[in-house]
């Protein structure tokens, strides 16, 4: 009855080192994580190093070709129509880009998921009301919202975040609601109810951990979408305002030069692609790694992983 065996019980705490070893076993996911780290570090520290160079105009060296060191290493990726270093601008832009995309995604993720889980858990009228509100936001032209917000308030990063976040909330709302509505009828949720656990606690203890991987997958896709939306707003002239610069703005401004100076929009476009692909890869890895039922797959060599399950 009172057996006292000394076994460590802090299972969750011992998970982190395990995750890291798991990650290191997966080369592709490790690479993705490294790329993301690099992007984040660049966004944090890069602008300190090259902010001046990114602003430095030299009209006499406009649209210089990339892949030559004639203009110094900063011009290795070419220069823009004002003769600024594309590389330096990419680095400076990474901060703006992330400081718009990350808060926008997080904000919509948090708000949408919380409301969605709440509505799905309680069902009934609350659910209907929330879903119709999601319909309203979805059927509202985000462009109009952008024009209005950016017209009334100035087109600052914060307002851009606001617009993008609001328009993306329904995505999480719907996903979270659907999954939560399904989960609230599960037996382990019933079990928690029999303990007298409050709905909020159940949502955080049982619903959230299960739908979080799905939400994070949606969020990584959305991360990409938000960067592209920001770019589209720039295409229409209501995005990030120069002299601030974001990857989206660079792509949008560079598009007119696609034939004469392809590097202007190619490199920022590549930056968006690499970042979002890395995020997607890491997210799908994390989805497996955080699911105890699936984690074993990651311990297999990559090419064998899928086979096993279909046999």
């Amino acid at each position, binding site marked *: 009855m009172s057996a006292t065996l000394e076994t460590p019980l802090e299972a969750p705490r011992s998970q982190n080192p395990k995750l890291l070893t798991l990650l290191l076993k997966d080369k592709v996911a490790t690479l993705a994580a490294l790329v993301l780290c690099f992007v984040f570090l660049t966004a944090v520290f890069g602008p300190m190093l090259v902010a001046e160079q990114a602003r430095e105009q030299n009209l006499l060296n406009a649209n210089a070709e990339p892949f030559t060191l004639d203009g110094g290493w900063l011009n290795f990726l070419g220069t823009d129509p004002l003769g600024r270093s594309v590389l330096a601008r990419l680095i400076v832009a990474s901060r703006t880009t992330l400081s718009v995309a990350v808060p926008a995604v997080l904000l919509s993720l948090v708000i949408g998921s919380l409301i969605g889980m709440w509505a799905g858990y309680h069902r009934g009228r609350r659910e*209907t009301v929330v879903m*119709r*509100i999601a*319909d*309203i936001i*979805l*059927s*509202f*032209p*985000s*462009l*109009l*919202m952008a*024009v*209005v917000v950016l*017209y*009334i308030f100035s087109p600052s990063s914060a307002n851009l975040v606001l617009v993008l976040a609001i328009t993306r909330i329904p*995505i999480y709302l*719907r*996903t979270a609601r*659907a999954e939560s509505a399904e989960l609230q009828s599960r037996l382990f949720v019933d079990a928690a109810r029999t303990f007298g656990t409050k709905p909020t606690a159940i949502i955080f203890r049982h619903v959230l951990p299960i739908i979080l991987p799905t939400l994070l*997958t949606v969020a990584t*896709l959305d991360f*990409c979408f938000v*960067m*592209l939306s920001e*770019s*589209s707003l720039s*295409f*229409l002239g209501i995005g990030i305002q120069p002299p601030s610069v974001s990857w*989206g703005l660079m*792509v*949008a401004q560079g*598009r007119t030069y*696609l*034939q004469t100076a392809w590097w202007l*929009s190619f490199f920022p*476009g590549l930056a*968006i*692609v690499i970042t*979002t*692909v890395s995020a*997607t*890869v890491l997210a*799908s890895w994390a989805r497996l790694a955080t699911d105890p039922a699936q984690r074993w797959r990651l311990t297999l060599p*990559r*090419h*064998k*992983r*899928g*086979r096993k*399950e*279909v046999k």
Partner: protein
Amino acid sequence: MTGFLRRRAVTSLLPLIAVLLGVFFLARLTGDPANLYLPVSATPEQRQNFIEANGLDDSIWVQMWDYLGGVLTLDFGDSLRTGESAAAMALRAFPATLQLAFSTMLIAVVGAVVIGSWAAYRPNSVADRISSFLSMTAASVPDFWFAIVGVWIFAVSLGWLPTSGVTGGMASWVLPVATLVIRPLGVLTQVVRGAMVSALSAPYVRLARSKGAGDLRVVTHHALRNAAAPALTVAGDLMVGLINGAVVVETIFGWPGIGKLMIDSILGRDFAVLQACVLLTAVSIFVLNILIDIGYALLDARVREKVSA
């Protein structure tokens, strides 16, 4: 089913009014259109006339009531820019957008199902990795970039296709649809693949396999149906995006759709047209959502049948 439809129609009415009012007020926050439509010399009297003629002098609440009253009698007002009936303009532009959206979605769904199933069938094979990488990449490239590069490669350099417009017959559809389809195809392929991987490892699919069901049959009859629900959600959201205006693509290709009309009326402070456009798209998005819910119900019933059978 009819009860469900009736309930949804009723519960959708209030949100539609909310959308309408939202657009009504938001649009008016973007400034007085007088500068756009009056000559620079406009005297205070002329400005006053303009404002009165367009009912902009009443309090915003009176304007709102007038507008709602008009909507009830299907009178959406006239365009400031062209003087035409706003409803007529919106209705004229909408089919172009719908055609574009539906053909895009059709190709995206078929493509995603084929590529996604194929990739999921042998997860982590070379084919799977290539298609995953391509679909991820495709989903993260701006559409205007594809559009402009596409025009130069396929229209100008190769001369296979017209650059733009709607009058070139089938050929003029290729570039806009190809540009639009890339992102939905990429996203949907990933969704289908993910859902298929888990569906293929679900007990009842394994059961079907062990009973000797052929590979193709397993994929089409068992796994695909189960994978359809998440795909339907994402496809619905993507479709909403397409209906709500493929603004960029319509702008570049001169496609006379609702997205272009909407951005033109936003920039032209053409409130009546904007409101008509938004109401039209909102109604169709609500209808779409109802269709998606019906789709879920059908899928649900079938999946349940399958599992219990």
